[in-house]
């Protein structure tokens, strides 16, 4: 019971890490980005390639995954995403599905469609025994990393000038622009940061979620779900939603394995009906 709860929390914190960037995109610019999982996949491949081809140690690949996907995200935002901010949701959906298909095809072309092998370093493997329950060391590590990052992000958003600008732009982009905040630039930086976090999440998640070329579609729903249920543009909302979904999904797979992914999809529809504006959503 406790073990399932813990696994769910580890899983949920990973979902949170990947989805946070999406919550900025959807909350700040009202952009439906189905391609967000592609950034996570990119981070995962950066990690695997760096480890297997260049012998970089696992911990050192993590910042690498963050930086490279952040750069890719920044470039795509500048060249493509930016042009569609004012477009209809249908256009955004089509564009991001197109991007997703291209990323999947590219990943299959370069790396094949099989699961990528992943060898964790020795000190992250195994279990620790605490109060009658086994905790996977890697999952403890995962929760610790995400907790540290969340604290950092919370600080960034609530205490720094940039954070104030992000919050102002989310609340009311027009008024923020009127006050002299460069909303476009704020969004570029936020988009790059979000892509980077997704990449980091993808790299950290290889052990938990696996990594193959169908990753962006396989987990697309989970990321979208975290944002839609959590309400966009905050840290607290997606965090709560991600933990809830993580625990539900793991518990569902553990206790009713015959139902498979049914539990999570049913939870999704029910949550959407019960909280149309998200768990912490404000009514507009």
């Amino acid at each position, binding site marked *: 019971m406790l073990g399932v709860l813990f696994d769910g929390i580890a899983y949920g914190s990973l979902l949170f890490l990947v989805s946070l960037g999406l919550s900025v995109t959807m909350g700040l610019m009202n952009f439906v980005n189905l391609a967000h999982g592609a950034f996570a996949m990119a981070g995962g491949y950066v990690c695997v390639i760096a480890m297997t081809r260049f012998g970089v140690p696992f911990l050192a690949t993590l910042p690498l995954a963050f930086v490279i996907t952040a750069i890719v995200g920044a470039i795509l935002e500048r060249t493509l995403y930016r042009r569609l901010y004012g477009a209809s*949701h249908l256009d955004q959906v089509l564009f991001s599905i197109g991007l997703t*298909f291209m990323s999947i095809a590219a990943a299959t072309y370069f790396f094949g469609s099989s699961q990528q092998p992943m060898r964790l370093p020795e000190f992250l493997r195994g279990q620790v025994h605490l109060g009658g329950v086994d905790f996977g060391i890697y999952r403890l590590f995962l929760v610790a990393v995400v907790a540290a990052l969340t604290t950092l992000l919370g600080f960034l958003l609530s205490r720094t000038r940039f954070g104030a600008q992000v919050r102002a732009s989310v609340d009311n982009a027009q008024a923020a622009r009127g006050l002299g905040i460069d909303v476009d630039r704020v969004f570029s930086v936020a988009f790059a940061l979000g892509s980077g976090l997704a990449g980091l999440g993808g790299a950290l998640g290889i052990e938990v979620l696996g990594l193959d070329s169908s990753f962006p579609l396989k987990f697309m729903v989970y990321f979208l779900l975290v944002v839609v249920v959590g309400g966009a543009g905050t840290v607290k909302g997606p965090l709560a939603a991600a933990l809830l979904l993580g625990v539900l999904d793991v518990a569902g797979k553990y206790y009713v394995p015959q139902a*498979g992914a049914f539990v999570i999809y049913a939870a999704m529809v029910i949550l959407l009906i019960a909280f149309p504006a998200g768990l912490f959503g404000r009514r507009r």
Partner: protein
Amino acid sequence: LTALGRMRTVEVVFWLVPLAAFLLLPGYLVLGSQILIVALFALSLDLILGYAGIVSLGHAAFFGLGAYAAGLLAVNGWGEPLSGLLAGAAVAALAGFLASFLVVRGEDLARLMVTLGIGLLLYEAGNRAAFLTGGVDGLSGVVMGKIFGVFAFDLGGRTAYLYSLAVLFAVFVFLKRLTSSPFGLSLRGIRENPARMAALGAPVRRRLIAAYTLGAAIAGIAGALLAQTTQFVGLDSLAFNRSAELLIMLVLGGTGRLYGAIVGAAVFMIAQDYLSGVNPVYWQFWLGLLLVVFVFFARGGILGAVEAVAMKLGARSARRADSGGVE
């Protein structure tokens, strides 16, 4: 209004193409019936997206429901095709009616998520209920009776092709009349501005529910048709990829025109047949690239581009006629 509902010469020629294909390309009838069925499916999405403006990422749910309904009927000994179609339509319509209450109340984003969720839910249900649907192996052993008790399905797919064409044409004529009726016009109004239509006294909610239910029913017919003509129902009839590709075809052809759905389906299926024969991975890449390019440069789709060119030519010839008159 009646003029909108009547056929023009171009349209007659358009419908002669699939008939000519039947006579001239007997080796491609299987692909041909696939195109006709997918075109029918795309028409159903055009009604709800192109006319009513409801964005959907899970339309395959209704296609799959129709397919399984017709397939299960036939497996269990009821092989009469037309009643099978009706059964598929009825099941899908019921599901669509129930789902419509969730779909009509949200904004675009909520609609996307709800339709996506319903689609995935049904896929997973189909996957898990293997005792009924055959799970990932699919539902085989579909045995069809003769259409009207006269025309048996043959191996070459001639009956299947003509049957699909007849159903497609019948549904098309129905939709053509429907979309040029006051009901269809009110749907277009709601797509453009729901608040204004409500202010004008149109029952926005009820119209959207009706359109969505009807769209689901037609998708169910398309699914049932696929089950009957291929005598097999695969789990992929419910998959997300089917919904996404459907959206792509419709946008490729041009939304809100009915013909766009058919042209888009034909172009898409032929390209897929050719390119994925070369290499399926390349096909997915080119498809993605095509989507991105289309969003940026050709939002009206193929028919939109054709219309724009025709308009330009028309304007030029009109100008020439004008200047000729002055001289």
